[in-house]
């Protein structure tokens, strides 16, 4: 058991960028692993992704021709299982993504592998893998080891490692995938409802509201404040789930990617990990929250502790 196997991920014909981040992670651990870095890609025509995966650090690319092109957990698990059996890696890296939620735990359970998810740091201590992840709502870091496990499977948080660049000249090997009867049949993709025509992906200045606003009747006050400041009004998941604002206004990992945002004011958002992960690219985050211990203050550039209703009213007098 040596070497590292990285599972690349694609969706709707595009390689997902996190794949290159995991290759970079593997490259940084290659010396400790004492073996090659192998990247596996699963799909009906996996060869189409090969060129994009020939980046620095990759020794071999395994192409596993299987499935319809859209993720189904049974085909993916069978293919990754075949790749593990073929290369006997000591470490398998999978993106901590919604697709991985659907099959990584199955592989770990069936293979009896060492297993941890949402890992943001990986080390080797005298030949044994050590993974660090968050615990208790990200209030602590937890260092895990995997005694007695010859294979350790980790799902790795996105946007932790810088994507691998450069080029390499890896061996490309086609690996057969055993036939599986898939119990899940992927269907069409749907964009989150566009109840209004806001485009969060283009907004440069967003003010979002979260649970801290307390009740729906207070939404209009913040809408007026956003309008007055020239900000696009956004929200965290609980506000959209409660129907106080349309889903199209939700930002964070599962909401619209606020890719153009440069100034983000978070009002009454304590900062669930998915929200922070979706917004941490923003250069200036200002958090206003009644709780001085709110996690959002650890990623914000500026913080204000106080009542968001009173603060909002006061802020509005300036615009």
């Amino acid at each position, binding site marked *: 058991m040596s070497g590292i196997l990285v599972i690349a991920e694609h969706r709707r014909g595009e390689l997902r960028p996190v794949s290159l981040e995991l290759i970079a992670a593997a490259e940084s651990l290659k010396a400790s692993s004492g073996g090659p870095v192998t990247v596996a890609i699963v799909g009906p025509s996996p060869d189409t992704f090969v060129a994009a995966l020939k980046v620095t650090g990759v020794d071999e690319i395994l192409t596993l021709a299987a499935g319809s092109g859209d993720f189904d957990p049974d085909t993916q698990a069978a293919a990754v299982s075949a790749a593990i059996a073929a290369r006997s890696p000591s470490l398998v890296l999978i993106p901590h993504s919604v697709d991985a*939620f659907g099959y990584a735990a*199955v592989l*770990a359970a069936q293979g009896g592998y060492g297993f941890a998810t949402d890992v943001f740091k990986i080390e080797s201590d005298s030949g044994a893998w050590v993974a660090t992840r968050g615990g*208790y709502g990200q209030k602590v870091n937890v260092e895990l080891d995997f005694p007695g496990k010859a294979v350790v499977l980790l799902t790795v948080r996105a946007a932790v490692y810088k994507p691998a660049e450069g080029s390499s000249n890896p061996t490309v090997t086609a690996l057969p995938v055993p036939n599986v009867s898939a*119990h899940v049949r992927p269907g069409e993709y749907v964009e989150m409802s566009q109840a209004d025509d806001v485009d969060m992906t283009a907004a440069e200045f967003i003010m979002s509201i979260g649970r801290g606003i307390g009740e729906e009747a207070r939404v209009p006050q913040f809408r007026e404040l956003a309008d007055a400041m020239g900000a696009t009004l956004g929200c965290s998941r609980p506000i959209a789930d409660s129907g106080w604002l349309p889903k199209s206004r939700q930002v964070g990992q*599962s909401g619209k990617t606020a890719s153009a945002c440069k100034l983000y004011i978070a009002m009454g958002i304590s900062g669930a990990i998915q929200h922070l992960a979706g917004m941490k690219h923003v250069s200036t985050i200002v958090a206003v929250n009644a709780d001085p211990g709110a996690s959002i*203050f650890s990623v914000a550039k*500026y913080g*204000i502790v106080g009542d968001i209703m009173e603060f909002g009213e006061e802020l509005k007098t300036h615009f």
Partner: protein
Amino acid sequence: MATKILVAVKQVIALDEDFEIRADGKDVDADFFLRDLNEWDDFSLEEAVKIKEAGGEVEVVVVTVGPEEADESLRKCLAKGADRAVRIWDESMEGSDSQAIARVLAAAIKHEKPDLVFAGVQSSDHSFASTGIAVAGLLGWPHAAVVNQFDFSLGATQATIRRELEGGVLQMMNIDLPAVLSIQLGINTPRYASLRTIKQAAAKPIETLGLGDLSLNAAEVGEVGSASRVRRMYIPEKGRAQMIEGSLAEQAAKLAAIIKEFKGATV
């Protein structure tokens, strides 16, 4: 025959504001634990209760793995519409990770023989996002994760589900039944328990099962049956926002200046 829906739930731990790490450095001191039903489980329970209320013979069974204090969370589920509550525990289960818990739940599913299993996408404390799907792997059942819509009719051999992907994209899928589904927040609007149902729940029994009832042995659970072991737990040094101090008026004026400067720079 009645349709049985098993909902796997967890009593999660939130931490008191000024918590401390235990002397052995491997967990937080239990004095700082605040326990409650996992937020995701409210939604998966509601989804099951909704199916029951839509008519037909449906039984909703909540199952948790945990010591006696988890009864409080099970009573909450009973008050919100679960028909039965089962708590599984043995001291050997202490220190179980998500894979070991999944092994216990899989055994409970063999014991209860449900037609459908719901679990939350993840727990709010350790957020492994893997227990429900690991259960499916152990049972060899069809499974799907991060489901935020479920269309199903009693007795059907397939159901239509919708997965919530990243970046505001959803995907429709068709799945064979019986299946294990991990349920996402927002799939429904969970109800509040009423005083009357809370009172009724207090009088309902909580069934308890141990290792032997499920034909498990101690080596399959706890730390030895886990896929990972905690080596160290510590409070990370976090970045800290530059706090804007002063009176409310001063704070607002400072933020207004930051906003105006930003807008000036982008015009």
